[in-house]
């Protein structure tokens, strides 16, 4: 059982050593990677996903429980403890969702016998993450962006049972963020969010700040930030409400301007 991943610092875009020499991700942690576009957030999680060994462009290294990860992690995806879900990751299969999940669960079970409970658990998980129902008879290629993201996460968590899950900007894709954080906290895993969202980092255990390709700071969220997160949530819910109304053809009155101000 993995307890800890260590990422040791390499070089930023200017070739100088990163200010953060090393960062530990402990089992159970929820971590955010923040920084402007082009600051190296995606490169950082791709270093994690590739078990960087000093040979990637950043020169970073990944250690698992203090040692170099075994080669099997890279060779066999079912041994790989890391699942990466990006905005570009998608399903190619044209199968119905239920059939697909059964095939994946079959590959994962030692004797090829699929526990139907695992399949329904995965679907239930996905349906808590997205508002649009993910039904077993839907074809994978018919799924919307939000449904796809939800199913990718649910599959990685439940069937794949990956102990480390990297999520690259899922907030843009119709996922309930609060629900996702709540649900994911129930599983003892390492979750790393690359995010531009204000809410997820405040509720993370810590956040890594990126600039010009380098890790510049690690900030641990304190009590004050957790309380702030609740305020951010209220503001965010208000905006989300407006968004929903506009999407569903609603109009706004002058009174509402007063209410918001």
């Amino acid at each position, binding site marked *: 059982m993995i307890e800890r991943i260590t990422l040791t610092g390499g070089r930023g875009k200017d070739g100088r050593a990163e200010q953060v020499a090393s960062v530990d991700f402990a089992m159970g942690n929820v971590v955010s990677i923040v920084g402007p576009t082009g600051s190296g957030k995606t490169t950082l999680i791709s270093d994690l996903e590739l078990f960087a060994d000093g040979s990637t462009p950043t020169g970073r290294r990944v250690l698992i429980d203090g040692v170099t990860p075994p080669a099997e992690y890279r060779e066999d*995806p079912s041994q790989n403890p890391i699942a990466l879900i*990006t905005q570009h990751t998608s399903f190619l299969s044209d199968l119905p969702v239920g059939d697909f999940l059964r095939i*994946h669960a079959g590959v994962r079970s030692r004797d090829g016998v699929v526990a139907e409970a695992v399949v329904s658990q995965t679907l239930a998980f996905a349906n808590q993450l997205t508002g649009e129902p993910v039904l077993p008879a839907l074809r994978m290629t018919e799924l919307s962006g939000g449904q796809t993201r939800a199913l990718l996460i649910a599959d990685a968590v439940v069937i794949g049972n990956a102990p480390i899950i990297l999520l690259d900007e899922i907030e843009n894709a119709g996922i309930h963020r609060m629900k996702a954080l709540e649900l994911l906290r129930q599983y003892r895993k390492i979750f790393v969010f690359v995010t531009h969202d204000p809410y997820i980092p405040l509720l993370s255990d810590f956040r890594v700040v990126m600039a010009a390709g380098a890790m510049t700071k690690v900030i641990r969220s304190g009590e004050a930030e957790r309380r702030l997160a609740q305020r951010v949530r209220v503001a965010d819910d208000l905006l989300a409400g407006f968004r929903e109304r506009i999407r569903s053809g609603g109009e706004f009155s002058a009174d509402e301007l007063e209410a918001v101000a």
Partner: protein
Amino acid sequence: MKLAICAGPATCGKTSVLRHTTRKLLARGSRVAFLKIDVQYAEEDEELAREFGIPTKKVYSGELCPDHCNVMVLGEALEWAEREAADVLLVETAGLCLRCSPYVDGGLGIVVLEATSGMNLPRKIGPMLSLADVAVVTKIDRVSQAEREVFRARILDAAPDIRVREVNALHGIGIDPLVERMRATPDVCGELTLRGNPPVGTCTICVGKKTVGWKSHFGVVRPLENQTFYRGE
């Protein structure tokens, strides 16, 4: 001379894999020569020659199956690579008909498959996969973890003894084990024979003559130089 033959569907990333392989082989002191066999268009030989300054060559198979073309020219290609003072010959061939495979006994057979081709690909491509020593899987970042796993499981269903290597061919990550495997492959010597049985057909290779070298064949033949199309008995 070590011989590695690399097959795989069009645009699956064969050249990217071989480019990284070449760079790493050269860095470890190997002397690499490269042969590209394609049907009607290829520029990989020129790219690799420009990038690494290694001896390269290409053959167009035209109306001949590229895998059959490989049988015709491979012996002479090894002699050519020998003259160029290489100690590893990398052959890249467009695997097309899914009935033949280009691998020869004693050489290393590499099939390159893109994870984006869908989970059923390993079940469809026959001896190109089942007779290879190593399956290199590219474009892994584009598909779900679940499909990667199913893809791998199905490769192993089709070829239980094959080594599967997932690589990021853009950044050359995961290539090292393939390079080590090539370096550990013994030199080829003597008469070369195709590893698999060719399908039923009408040229001497089609009808099952497996000896490498166009001089052992008749009908539609192809030498490395001089694009002769037909040779009677």
